[in-house]
Every structure is written in structure tokens, then in C-alpha cells.
């Protein structure tokens, strides 16, 4: 059955696709767009450089969202971030390690690492043991991830994905070990907990900007620009709707 909601949803999807494609094509002949500064991503770039220099490891944890759940978009953003970090740190003695709380996500993290090393012509760096399942329940995932914070010579932790508030234990362990931590989640309880604990919490949709801020492809920048344009559209609709309601038209 075709509903108005469905048609509107399809319209938004096609609008977003159109914006991404147009902005991608427009950006081909131009420099990368200048985005506003986000201190957390600047600090992450510095910490990646430091980790490469001092021979320590970067740990990326991707959350516990299954690929069949609607919350997996944050994990996809985490995988893009993993790809960029693996490429940037490919000259390091200690390649990055990825943990997750879902089997499908673990296999994708291994695939992402393989793809990243292949793209920098260093396929020999790939080790499937660096894309790990930490645990399959929320707490066992955290327990498995805590083990990485203390046993793998990690100097920077990047937490991007769907978590519960228990992810604060990992951020706390990172803090106790004197390691850098950047944390971003699509879950509100996790965001609240991480705001108090993590060195560099990233709030809301900024989580999806991580690949673009780490020097990702043109499509990452285009989708970030499309996201901004759509946000303005949502603001106009919300304010317009409120005004029309106040005037008694709606």
C-alpha cells in the first residue's frame, strides 16, 4: 500500500541522493570544502601522528549494533573512520586494532582493514586478528574491550558506534592508562555518559563527520555538505510548521 509517509520518505531519499551526487560532481574541480573546526578531530589527527612516532597502537571500537538493526549507520561511519586511520597509520610499527560487539561488524572491520592496506599498497600489513569480536552481549563486549585497553600498548582509543552507557568504563580505563580518547555515539545515554568521561566527546551528528575530517574521499565531503543542507531544510520545516500552527493554519 502506498502511503503519504512512504512517498515523502522516498522524496527525501532521492533529494539526499541528488544533493550528494551534485555536490560530488561540483567538488571535482575544486579544493576540498572548508569545514568548521572540531577540536576533537584535530586532537585525533595529532594523536594518530604521535602513535605512529612512538610506536604505539590505535584502538577503534565500533559498538555493538547488528547490521540488521537501524542503528548500524553509526557503525558504518566507524568503519569509514577505521579505513582512514588504517591508511594514515600504515607506516606505523603497530597497526591499529578494531573491536566490535557484533559478528557481522567484526567481519566488516576485518574487510575494511584489508581494503585499507590494499589501497596503500601494503597488503602484507593485514592481520585478521586485528579485527576482533570483543563479546556478544553489551557487558561482555565492554569486558573484552577493556582487555584491549590494558594489554595492547594502545595510546589512542576511538569509540565510534552504537553503545550503551557502559562504554564509559572503556573511556575511564583509557583515561587511567593516560591514553587519548575520542568518543561518538548515536545513542543518547552513551553520549551523556561519554560527555563526562571521555577526553574528546563528539556530540550528535558530528559522529558522521569523522571520515571527512580525517581527509576522506570527495564523497565524504559531499555527503557532509548534503547533511548540512538537509538540516537547514528540517529547520525551515520545523519553524514554518510552528508558525503555521501558531497562526491556526495547520
Amino acid at each position, binding site marked *: 500500500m502506498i502511503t503519504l509517509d*512512504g512517498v515523502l*520518505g522516498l522524496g527525501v531519499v532521492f533529494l539526499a541522493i541528488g544533493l550528494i551526487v551534485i555536490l560530488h560532481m561540483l567538488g571535482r574541480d575544486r579544493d576540498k570544502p572548508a569545514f568548521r573546526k572540531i577540536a576533537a578531530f584535530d586532537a585525533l589527527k595529532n594523536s594518530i601522528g604521535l602513535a605512529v612516532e612512538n610506536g604505539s597502537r590505535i584502538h577503534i571500537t565500533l559498538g555493538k549494533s547488528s547490521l540488521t538493526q537501524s542503528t548500524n549507520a553509526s557503525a558504518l561511519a566507524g568503519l*569509514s573512520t577505521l*579505513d582512514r586511520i588504517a591508511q594514515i597509520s600504515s607506516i606505523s610499527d603497530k597497526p591499529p586494532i578494531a573491536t566490535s560487539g*557484533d559478528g557481522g561488524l567484526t*567481519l566488516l572491520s576485518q574487510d575494511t582493514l584489508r*581494503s585499507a592496506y590494499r589501497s596503500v599498497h601494503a597488503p602484507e600489513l593485514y592481520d585478521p586478528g586485528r579485527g576482533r569480536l570483543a563479546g556478544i552481549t553489551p557487558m561482555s563486549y565492554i569486558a573484552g574491550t577493556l582487555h584491549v585497553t590494558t594489554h595492547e600498548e594502545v595510546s589512542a582509543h576511538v569509540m565510534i558506534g552504537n553503545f550503551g*552507557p557502559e562504554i564509559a568504563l572503556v573511556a575511564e580505563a583509557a583515561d587511567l592508562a593516560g591514553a587519548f580518547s575520542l568518543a561518538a555515539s548515536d545513542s543518547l545515554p552513551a553520549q551523556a555518559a561519554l560527555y563526562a568521561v571521555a577526553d574528546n566527546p563528539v556530540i550528535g551528528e558530528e559522529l558522521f563527520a569523522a571520515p571527512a575530517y580525517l581527509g576522506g574521499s570527495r*564523497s565524504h565531503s559531499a555527503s557532509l555538505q548534503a*547533511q548540512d543542507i538537509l538540516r537547514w531544510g528540517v529547520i525551515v520545516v520545523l519553524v514554518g510548521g510552528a508558525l503555521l500552527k501558531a497562526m491556526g493554519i495547520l
Partner: protein
Amino acid sequence: MRAPLSTAIAIAAGGLTLIGLLIPADPLLSIRIRLVEWAVALAGVAGLVAILHLLSVHWRKLTARRNKNFNSAFLLIAFIITFITGILLKPSHPTMQKIVTHIQVPIEASLMGVLAISLTVAAIRLFQRRGGWMSVLFAISALVFLVIGSGFLSASANIPVLKDVLAAVIALPIAGARGILLGVALGSLTTGLRVLLGSDRPYSG
């Protein structure tokens, strides 16, 4: 383009599922349901593969020539015992239930206890870590909602002005949460579309 076949399959499956979700009419609806069923089955297999991989990682840690990790032995032994018990007795058997309720649940509950203390300490240390008005606002809002949530002000439900003020204060985080969730939804949309357009291919390794 690398892996053109897997990219084409991913784009076609993703596109059909999306359209089937927004226009739930046959044959799109039945195609979507079938694709999601396959995805769930594949996710289950991926879970099994990842668990086997987890075991192999811990076996490697246990048998490494240098820096052996003996904690991995506990994981392997616990897994073997639980797995064999689960296969022989089935998950609903009282012994299996005891393993869950007497071992797993208390351990997870104790981690939640640690989390409560960690969060309290972290909230106190927030001012050392990050000064500024956001930290002050965070602390004030945490205190205000602790007081409201404790039921301390429940007697004020009958006081006209205070009742309205409380209702307005309680509505504030809902408004903020909706703002954040709208942003997250837009980010999810563009991230998903990047995969659907084949520009992000986490499956192409």
C-alpha cells in the same frame, strides 16, 4: 572499480529493500521481507564465524612464545564448558539457566556497579578536565534531574506554578534529545546512501 559484482549486488539489494520499506506493495514488499530474512540468517552465520575467530585469537594469545596471556585460558575453558553444556542440555535447561543467572548476570551487574561509581567520579572530575560553562550546565542539569527523578518534589504536583515550571523543565531534555536525534537521523541517512551509492564499500576487502 574493485569488486564490481559485490558492489552491484549490494546496491541492488539495498535499493530494493529501501524502496520496499517506503512503498510496502507487492512484489516489493515480499522481496524486502525475503532479503531481510537472508540478511538475518547471514548475520547469524557471521556471528558464529566471529566467535570462532575470537577463540582463535585467544588461543594464539595463550600459545604465544612471548607475552603469553593466561587470562585467555579462562575464556577458552568457560566457552568450552558453556558450549558443550548448551548443546547437550539445550538453553532452556535449569543448569544452563543457572550458568546465566548465577555467573553471567552477577558479573554483569557488578560491572554496572563499577560504572555507577566511575560515572560519579568522572562527573566530579569533569571540572578539572574541561572547564567552561558547558561543564557547569552539565553538572547543574545532572543535579536538577537527580532531584526531580528522586521523587523529592512529588508533593509539588498540586502547587499550580511549581507544577508548570517542573513540566517545562522536564520537557527541556526531550526537546534537546529530539534535536540531537534529528541530526543523527540525517547523518544516518547520508551514511547509508553512501553505501547504497557504492562510494563506501566496507564489504569490498
